[in-house]
């Protein structure tokens, strides 16, 4: 899914910007580094955000079913011993991890894509 999102982002790079870079003397490598990458950064970050939640979910689910270590496994083991405290701890840690990752991506989005024109601003 992330690959599709980023691919779409690269496809959407404004052709005029690529032309503008070319006529200023940019080589293909320059265009990739200085036009395609910054122009697709918003899409890359959206992909990262979507990818993050699904990968975290998948990881925990995998650990719950059959891993020898990890948070999912800890919860699973605690469940079989009726150890509620450990189970809750595991659940809370997963939640906090999710929030921290989300915050990191949000911070990156603000830092790296603040240049985007959003609705309500003058063109």
């Amino acid at each position: 899914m992330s690959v599709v999102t980023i691919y779409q982002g690269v496809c959407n790079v404004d052709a005029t910007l690529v032309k503008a870079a070319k006529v200023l003397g940019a080589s293909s490598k320059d265009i990739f580094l200085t036009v395609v990458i910054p122009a697709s950064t918003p899409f890359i970050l959206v992909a990262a955000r979507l990818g993050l939640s699904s990968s975290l979910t998948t990881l925990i689910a995998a650990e719950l079913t059959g891993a020898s270590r990890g948070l999912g496994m800890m919860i699973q083991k605690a469940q079989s011993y009726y150890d509620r405290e450990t189970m809750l701890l595991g659940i809370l840690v997963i939640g906090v991890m999710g929030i921290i990752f989300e915050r990191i991506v949000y911070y990156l989005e603000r830092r790296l894509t603040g240049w985007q024109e959003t609705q309500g601003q003058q063109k």
Partner: protein
Amino acid sequence: MAGNPRTTEVKIEQVVKRFDTRNGEVVALNGIDLEIAKDEFVCIVGPSGCGKSTLLNLIAGLSKPTSGKVYVNGKEVEGPGSERGVVFQQYALFPWLTVKKNVEYGLKLQGMSRKEASAEATRYIEMVDLKQFENAYPKELSGGMKQRVAIARAYAVKPQVLLMDEPFGALDAQTKTQLQSELIHTWIQEKRTVFFITHDVEEAVTLAQRIIIMSARPGRIREIVEVNLPYPRDQKTRVSKEFMDIKNHIWDEVYEEYMAMRK
């Protein structure tokens, strides 16, 4: 061109450009021959779809002619290069770079050190009167300001030929007039060969030394008009008889082409 012999900067020889579209082949340019002298200011007018932008893209090296040759400074054009700067109607500023970084962009590609590029960029930003917006992002600027940045960016890399594709087409009348006189001012300060596309006849007569009227598809040169009015051409020039005569003549020609195209 005022009689004195000048070197040819841009030479277009028997250029034909065809495009394959879904509706078959379209001949955009059909046998264009044109010479533009060094430091000359040329405007191209013609109905939309007559191949003006196609011709500009060929000179810029952004596309190749189907047949015929384009020479700039005696060398055949084989691709884009920094000796030919382009200003686009859609400004084409990099939205993730500040005004200053946009102007520095081409300078850094030329291998200039950070310090030199910064000094050069500042000089050109001052030239277009945007010093206080140096660190602004394009989204914070008005259309006229964006186009001034684009002009500074094109000028900064010191191209011999400046190609302008309807640069003021999207601006309001007052901003347009202002930018026209600024462009002429800049051009007088630092002479360049300018190839300027417009559909605004008055703009063409205000700016150009020579106006090339293109005919409707397939694009050909219909007529070349010399404009021997002194610079700068201000509001007073615009209402003078000579100005009006040239303007009316060109307008008639362009309108005829427009009607021919609608048939």
